[in-house]
């Protein structure tokens, strides 16, 4: 017969006594002073709603998705039933807020039992959705895998000391994201509660998903800290990572004359120089940093001076732009290029990140540049220009059928080499338009060639002119 004991309860008892001893010499609070106390009820749903609970379906969700099921249950007499509609119909999504704030600071995890009518992944599930606080302490677990067997699930609390008056008990959003994703099925949740498991260990918080990010910044152009996660090792030996709202973290700037950061992870640039943004969650330093290299006020691209009647603009704030399908088609598979477009004082800038190639499309209608003689753009490479910089601009005319790859496409290639580019400086590319057919221009493609490692750059004032 095993005697399962450990020495830690004793130690906690000791600490308790120590604190009692410690505060006994403090001046006592007057009788009038009262602390607000909140319910510490951890149960959310056992056989029915516990501790005063509400149900709010998310906008656009399938209103009938949630019901109480008296046939299927893990324990007791009932479970929570969620009917997820077919792809294209709608989705299931709701939050279950407590009627009154609860003090969850003694718990370390949201736990529940769940099963589904088929193998499925819940897109998003968690707690901390509370409209009154703008979801200040939201936690999101992504792609929680369910099976057809009742299984216990644990979603760790990133830092329970923050949850001393929380209303957001539980939320989920699940739907078929495409025709191959599961839909038209049911899952059940039972014995939903906050628990103190004491086996949630080895916290490893992260910002920017643990990456050390370096970014050129400008006064007045804020940057948001993203990729906020908390990772714990659970009793089963598995690591679990959840997305945690910024307010779980304490952010610090290494130089508050250059950058300051608020509790929502918004970094405001206020001076010139370099500052490092770091974060701490529950006393543990987060992996990942943001180094902002503030170059001061944003240097705007040269303002175009040509007469608007001689210009067909694709992207500028000086001229009226022609209809454009997109400035980044996120072409998959193949393109890794992201967009972080921004505007400063009303001047819109295209910002491409993690670049390999990207296109701007004008299909409806295609661009008739038959009266134009030149192509113009401004380009800005922040931080540094890689020594292997080699950049190609392709202007593609889709021919009479106005169809991409329709058999009558023609291209003009414009090469920009490393000698033409300076870091943190707008350069101007203004070259003759040599295309014979230029009345059905459908695409402008930017790409790295010959192994160029250019990753981030800005584009402005893309236009054809006479």
């Amino acid at each position, binding site marked *: 017969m095993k005697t399962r004991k450990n020495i*830690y309860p004793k130690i906690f008892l000791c*600490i308790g*006594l120590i604190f009692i*001893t410690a505060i006994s010499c403090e001046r006592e609070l007057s009788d009038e002073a009262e602390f607000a106390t909140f319910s510490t009820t951890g149960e959310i749903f056992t056989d029915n709603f516990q501790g005063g609970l509400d149900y709010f379906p998310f906008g656009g969700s399938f209103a009938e998705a949630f019901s109480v099921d008296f046939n299927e249950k893990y324990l007791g007499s009932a479970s929570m039933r969620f009917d997820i509609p077919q792809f294209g119909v709608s989705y299931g999504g709701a939050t279950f807020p407590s009627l009154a704030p609860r003090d969850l600071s003694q718990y370390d995890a949201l736990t529940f039992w769940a099963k589904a009518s088929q193998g499925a992944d819940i897109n998003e599930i968690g707690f901390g959705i509370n409209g009154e606080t703008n979801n200040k302490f939201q936690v999101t677990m992504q792609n929680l895998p369910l099976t057809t067997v009742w299984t216990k699930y644990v979603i760790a609390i990133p830092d329970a000391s923050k949850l001393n008056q929380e209303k957001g008990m539980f939320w989920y959003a699940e739907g078929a994201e495409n025709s191959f994703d599961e839909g038209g099925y049911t899952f059940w949740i039972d014995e939903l509660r906050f628990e103190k498991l004491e086996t949630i260990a080895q916290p490893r918080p992260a910002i920017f998903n643990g990456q050390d990010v370096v970014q050129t910044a400008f006064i007045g152009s804020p940057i948001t800290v993203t990729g906020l996660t908390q990772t714990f090792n659970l009793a089963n030996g*598995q690591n679990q990572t959840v997305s945690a709202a910024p307010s779980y973290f304490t952010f610090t700037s290494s130089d508050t004359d250059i950058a300051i950061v608020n509790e929502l992870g918004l970094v405001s640039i206020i001076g010139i120089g370099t500052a490092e943004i770091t974060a701490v969650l529950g006393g543990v330093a987060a992996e990942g940093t943001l180094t902002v290299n503030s170059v001061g006020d944003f240097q705007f691209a040269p303002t175009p001076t040509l007469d608007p009647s001689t210009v067909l603009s694709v992207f500028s704030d000086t001229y009226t732009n022609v209809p454009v399908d997109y400035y980044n088609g996120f072409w998959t598979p193949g393109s890794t290029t992201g967009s972080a477009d921004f505007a400063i004082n009303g001047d819109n800038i295209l910002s491409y990140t993690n670049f390999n190639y990207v296109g701007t499309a004008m299909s409806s209608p295609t661009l008739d540049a038959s009266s134009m003689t030149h192509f113009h753009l401004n380009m800005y490479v922040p931080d540094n220009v890689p020594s292997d910089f080699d950049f190609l601009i392709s202007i593609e005319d889709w021919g009479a059928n106005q169809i991409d790859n329709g058999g009558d496409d023609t291209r003009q290639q414009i090469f920009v080499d490393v000698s033409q580019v300076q870091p943190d400086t707008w350069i101007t590319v203004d070259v003759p338009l040599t295309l014979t057919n230029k009345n059905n221009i459908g695409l402008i493609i930017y790409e790295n060639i010959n192994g160029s490692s250019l990753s981030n750059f800005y584009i402005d004032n893309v236009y054809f002119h006479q």
Partner: protein
Amino acid sequence: MRNKTNKIKSLIKVVSIPFIALLFLTITNCSTDETQTVTNFTNLVMSDEFDAEGAPNSALWNYEIGTGNNGWGNNELQYYTDRTENIKVENGYLLISANKEAYNGSSYTSARITTQGLFEQTHGRFEARIRVPYGKGLWPAFWLLGSDCETNIWPQCGEIDIMEYLGDNPDTVFGSVHGPGYSAGEAVTKEYTLENDRFDTGFHVFGIEWTPDYINYYVDDALYQQITPADVPGEWVFNNPFYIILNLAVGGNFPGAPNSETVFPQTMLVDYVRVYQQ
């Protein structure tokens, strides 16, 4: 007495400085039960409290360097070194750290020390206070080998595993004996699981009390296994001197290889090793 000293030390780590003075006033009241009823041997004959900073005491510990034969017989993946990156005494603890690094043809480094030829004893109480690391592939151990293993080939020379633990099962440790006819996968073994706790978040005392008639295994104040000559399906080979081994293995047949979830470096902390006789 020694236990009490140790417990005070652990409390100081938990409580902030202003409370330390109060702590000493309070400590005698709440430390009501310092004795482990599971142990009877109290004549301390050897202890290393790891109080001297630097390398482990060379009068007591040898390093085992390299990869042994076939990864120390288990296809372990680490290369054992004596570098401070892998082993050192600091702040009152022995630290054995496993690193992920290319080193002499291995992908991981760690350390393994023994008392072979320096401290060997037949029977007695062997215990250590240890905090283990975590993660798939980590395999720390506190164990004994028969002092004649170089001539009397294992498993005939005997092995007593006081504590083994696998980093992907953080609430469980194993206690085992290996001998002729009951070795490797056939060892006589038992696991001990913590309720609502885990071994990588705090220190625990792992020990055996070993006599001609039995080996008792305990964790903290819980006796969880007794192995007697009648329990082993072969010869009882535990009536001769054994020496102590502390190591942190990475990978191998028992734990499997680390995976992408395993965080490195990982450190096993040893607060003390103590040996008693009856």
